[in-house]
C-alpha cells in the first residue's frame, strides 16, 4: 500500500528524515511514534506531497506521491485540523465531497453517514468558528472518511483534546480498523496507540529505531511506553 524507499528530507543543514525505508501493507494499522522533532510529521507531509523528499521514493498503491491520483483514496486529518471559519461543518463536508467527485443526493447521503460516524449530527449547520477544538478534529475526521477511503492518515489527531474527545476519536479509529481500513497514525499518546494499532515504528532524530508488530515489540510485563523510552534512551 505505502512504500518508502531510502527517503531523506533535509531542511537546510538539518536532516529531518534520514534514509527511511519501510512498507505498510493494506489493512494494517500503523503507528509512527517518536518525540517532537523525530520526523513523523515530515513523513506525513511527504506522503501527501505537501513537501518533496530530498532523496528517495515514496509510492502509494504503486503510484508516486507526486501523482495526484495517489491521493484519490486517502483521507487525511491534520494535527489541529483547521476548517475555514466562514464555512459551516456541512459546507466543509460538502466541499470535500465535491472534491472527491460526489454530488447531489449521493453527496448528501455520504455527508449524513460520516456526520453520524463522528458524532456531529445536529452540529453541522454551525459555522466552524463556533466549534471547539474537539469538534473541529471530529469534523476533520468526518471529511477524511468521505467516500470510504482505503487509507486514513492521522497526524496527531488527539493532540489538545480532552479525555472525552480522545475517547471519541479512538472509538472512531477502532471502528475503522475493524473494517480493515489501512490507518497510519502519528501520535504521542502511546496508550492510545497500543489500543488502536497492530504495527508501530519508533523514530528518533529522523531515523527509524525499530519497526515491527506491537505484540512482538512489547515483551511480557512491559507497556509500549516502556519500550518507547528504552529505545529512545538507547539512541541518545
Amino acid at each position, binding site marked *: 500500500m505505502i512504500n518508502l524507499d531510502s527517503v531523506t528530507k533535509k531542511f537546510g543543514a538539518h536532516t529531518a528524515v534520514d534514509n527511511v525505508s519501510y512498507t505498510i501493507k493494506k489493512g494494517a494499522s500503523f503507528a509512527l511514534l517518536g518525540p517532537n522533532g523525530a520526523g513523523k510529521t515530515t513523513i506525513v*507531509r511527504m506522503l*501527501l*506531497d*505537501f*513537501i518533496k523528499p530530498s532523496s528517495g521514493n515514496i509510492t502509494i498503491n504503486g503510484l508516486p506521491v507526486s501523482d*495526484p*491520483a*495517489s*491521493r*484519490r483514496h*486517502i483521507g*487525511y486529518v*491534520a494535527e489541529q*485540523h*483547521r*476548517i*475555514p*471559519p*466562514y464555512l459551516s461543518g456541512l459546507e*466543509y463536508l460538502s*466541499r*470535500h465531497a465535491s*472534491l*472527491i467527485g460526489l454530488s447531489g443526493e449521493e453527496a448528501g447521503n455520504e455527508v449524513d453517514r460520516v456526520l453520524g460516524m463522528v458524532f456531529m449530527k445536529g452540529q453541522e449547520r454551525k459555522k466552524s468558528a463556533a466549534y471547539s477544538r474537539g469538534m473541529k478534529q471530529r469534523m476533520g475526521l468526518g*471529511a477524511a472518511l468521505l467516500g470510504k477511503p482505503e487509507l486514513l492518515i492521522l497526524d496527531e489527531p488527539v493532540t489538545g483534546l480532552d479525555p472525552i474527545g480522545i475517547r471519541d476519536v479512538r472509538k472512531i479509529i477502532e471502528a475503522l480498523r475493524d473494517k480493515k481500513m489501512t490507518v497510519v497514525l502519528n501520535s504521542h499518546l502511546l496508550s492510545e496507540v497500543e489500543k488502536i494499532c497492530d504495527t508501530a515504528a519508533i523514530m528518533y532524530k529522523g531515523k527509524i529505531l525499530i519497526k515491527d508488530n506491537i505484540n512482538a515489540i512489547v515483551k511480557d510485563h512491559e507497556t509500549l511506553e516502556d519500550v518507547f523510552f528504552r529505545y529512545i534512551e538507547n539512541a541518545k
Partner: protein
Amino acid sequence: MLDQMRHKSFYVLLGLSILFILMIRGCYDGEYMVNGRMVDNTAVAWHVSKIVFHLITAGMFLMVSMLSMKIFSRDHEDGSVVLFLSRSVVRWQYVLGRVTGTWALCLVFMFILHLTIFLTVWVKTGTLISGYLTASFVCSISLFFVIACICFLSLFMPGFISALFTMGMLFVGFISDGGYQIFNSDIVRAAVPSSINLEPALWRVLYPKVFMVQAYADTIISKGELHKMGPFHPLLNLFFFIFLIMVLMVNAFNRKEI
C-alpha cells in the same frame, strides 16, 4: 469566487460602489450652462460616463488589490490549501482556480457598475453609448494582470507589500504610457511638431501596458485613435505578461512547501 464573497472587504467595497453610483446618478439630472449657454445634456452625459468609466476601473484596481493580496496566505492560515491539496487536486488547478475565481468575481462586479452607468445614461438621455460594455470587458484583462501579479509576488513577500509593489508598477506605467499618449495627442503634435520623432526607450515599449489597455478601452468608447507604443498591441503585451506570470506562479507554487 464564492469564497471571496464571504469576506467582509468584499461587502465594504460593494457598499461603497453602490453609494458612488447613487451619487453619480445626480449628474444626469441637472441642466448645464457654460458661458451663459445651455449645454446639450447628451454631450454632458457622454463625457461624465467616460470619466466615471475610468473612475470605476481605477476603483476596481484597488478592490482587486485588497482581494488578491491575501488569497494564498489566508488559504494557508484557515486550512483551505490543505483541504484542496490533500485531495487529488493538482497544484496548478488550485492556483488557476483561485486567480480566475477572483478575476471572475471582479469582472462581474465591474461589469455591473459599468452596466448601471450605461443604463442610467440610456434612461435619462435616451442615448446608448456604443462600445461602453465592450470596453468594460477589455479593462477586465488589466484586472487579471493585477490579480496574477499580486498573487505571484505574495508567494515571496507579505501580501500588502506585493499589492503596493504592483500599484507602484502600475503608477510607473501610468506615467510612461500616459506621457506617451499626451505627447502624441493632436494638440501637442500641433503645438510641438518635433515631439513626433521622439522614440520611447526599449523598457517603455516592453513594460506591461496596463494604462495603454485602459487607453485602448477609451478609444472603443470614443472611436478615437490609439497611439500605441512599439510594434505590439497593448492587449498582446498584457496577454504575454499574464501568461508569463501564471507560468512563473504555478512553477513557484509547485516548489512551495505546504
